């Protein structure tokens, strides 16, 4: 692998940049004086924590925001005053458990997330494989750029694209009409939401799978082929088992992202195919029942965090993408 780090080169000949370098070194000297004054003997065991502090503080904002939700989730809305109750109660969780609306909400969301995960992985596997293994540079570039363009365009803008394609006056129905076929009404249905989600998740799935395919040594594939295995057998018995960790990681990421999605059901579901995230939003902003919304929010957070925790336990700490040097 080629090293990408650049080591500062020899001072350039131009006087101007030499002057800039001198100023830069003076600045560093100043910083060094500050450091030496603050930590004359080094920060010792504190150094790693000082480095981590800004990130820890940023994430702490999230923790500080979620903890009050726990408290809110335990207070029932007083319908007379429209204020949260005085005492802690599990009434909100009981409401979620008892009302069939919320049972169907959970089933719809989990079922759709499962279908989206399976479809995304089926579509992503060949894409990632070809992107990693192709010897043609132009094909690799085409596949990379096609993947990154939608990845870098937000969900709302992509959902707008689907509205244009699938709407009543949209491209799909124009083509069907031109072929003399009846129009389809996939927009504002659950399959429509899933279609939008699969397209949204495809880049995530491919990007999670690609490193796993890179790690498969080409020799084992060649060996399998030269022993007479067809490409299908090689893929099924050699490649798939080797990329299984990447496959599970991609499945977990796609499933949790779909499970907690808001924009696709909101835009492509037309209000009739809400997911749990939409119900949380409505509980806060339409029903004005923060207790119920918080209870749903806590349950959804627990689901997401548990799945990620299991993944960390299964695959270890490499999940954050770093390898510590021995």
């Amino acid at each position, binding site marked *: *692998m080629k*090293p*990408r*780090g*650049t080591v500062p080169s020899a001072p350039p000949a131009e006087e101007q940049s030499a002057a800039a370098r001198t100023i830069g070194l003076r600045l*560093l000297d100043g910083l*060094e004086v500050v*450091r*030496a004054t603050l930590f004359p003997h080094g920060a010792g065991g504190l150094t790693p924590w000082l*480095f*981590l502090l*800004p*990130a820890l503080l*940023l*994430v702490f*904002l*999230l923790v500080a925001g*979620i903890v009050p*939700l726990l408290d809110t989730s335990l207070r029932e809305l007083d319908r007379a005053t429209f204020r949260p109750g005085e005492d802690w109660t599990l009434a909100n969780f009981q409401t979620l458990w008892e009302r069939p609306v919320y049972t169907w909400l959970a089933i719809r969301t989990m079922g759709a997330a499962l279908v989206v995960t399976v479809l995304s992985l*089926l579509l*992503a596997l*060949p894409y990632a494989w*070809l992107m990693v*293994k192709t010897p043609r540079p132009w094909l690799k570039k085409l596949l990379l750029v*096609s993947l*990154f*363009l*939608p990845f*870098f365009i937000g*969900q*709302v*803008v992509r959902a*707008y*694209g*689907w509205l244009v394609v699938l709407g009543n*006056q949209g491209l799909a129905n*124009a083509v069907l009409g031109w072929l003399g076929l009846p129009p389809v009404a996939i927009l504002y249905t659950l399959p429509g939401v899933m279609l939008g989600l699969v*397209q949204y998740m495809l880049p995530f799935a491919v990007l999670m799978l690609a*490193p796993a395919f890179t790690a498969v040594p080409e020799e084992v594939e060649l060996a399998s082929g030269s022993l007479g295995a*067809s*490409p*299908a057998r090689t893929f099924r018995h050699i490649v798939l088992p080797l990329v299984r960790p990447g496959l599970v990681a991609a499945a977990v990421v796609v499933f*949790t992202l779909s499970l*907690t999605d*808001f*924009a696709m059901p909101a835009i492509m579901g037309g209000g009739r195919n809400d997911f749990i*995230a939409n119900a*949380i*939003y409505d509980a806060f902003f339409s029903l004005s029942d923060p207790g119920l*919304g918080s209870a749903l*929010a806590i349950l959804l*957070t627990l689901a*997401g*965090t548990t799945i*990620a925790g299991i993944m*960390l336990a299964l695959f270890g700490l490499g999940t*954050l*993408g*770093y390898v*510590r040097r021995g």
Partner: protein
Amino acid sequence: MQRSPFTLLLGLIVAFDLVFLAVPTLVVVVISFTSGNMVAFPPEGFSLRWYGVLLTKPEFLAALGRSLQVGLVCTALAIPAGTAAALALARWRIRFPTALQLYLLLPFTVPLVVSGIALMLLFGRMGMLGAVWPVGLAACVINLPFMIWAVAASVNHLDPDLENAAMNCGAPPTHTFFTVTLPAVAPGILTGALVMFILAVNEFLVSLMLVDARIVTLPVLVYNAIRNIITPDLAAVSVVYLLIAIVAIWLLDRLVGLGILLESKRN
């Protein structure tokens, strides 16, 4: 690879993927040039009128300006915080590594809708709502693991002997850090900064809860608009986003190469 029905099937799936990924974007580009008043196929004619509408409607430009502001605040916060965290994680043996990882991954494991409501209530109590910069701060919090990942990938390529050599030559710690360590992880910082900027400019759900009618960001403006009637001016907005994405990908390819993401994490 040999040709077989199986490889043909894989090729067909990839071809489908390419069309599937591109169709909504391509269609939007076509519609943005229509001269008609409605989104219809085939488009009525060619014109640039909807781009003109964008330039003459102050709310679009203001929302775009605010989204770029969100992106800048987010990136400015993420660069130091993410770089320092990635260096610390890769460099030192820290106690409770699993707990630390789970904590730093919270922005990904907490659903965005929950993060949005939690930050809205928190910022509300702190009197921070009604301004644009808290949206940038929120975008930084919810995407921070991307920044840490990007820099961590570069740290793994950093040879600790380079730093030891600098120290041996008499460079004090600050000099070593800024002249050896940082330049070595610069590709990761650039990648992370670019990704954080793009994600923040596109950030929708958390913004939806943190902004009010006076300070809507561009994705929130698009969201509010498509709930009423789908007009071609939004296609022109989408093309603006497409252009931003193209520039970002071009920069990423020039600076570090897109292939960086294909590398195995187990090397």
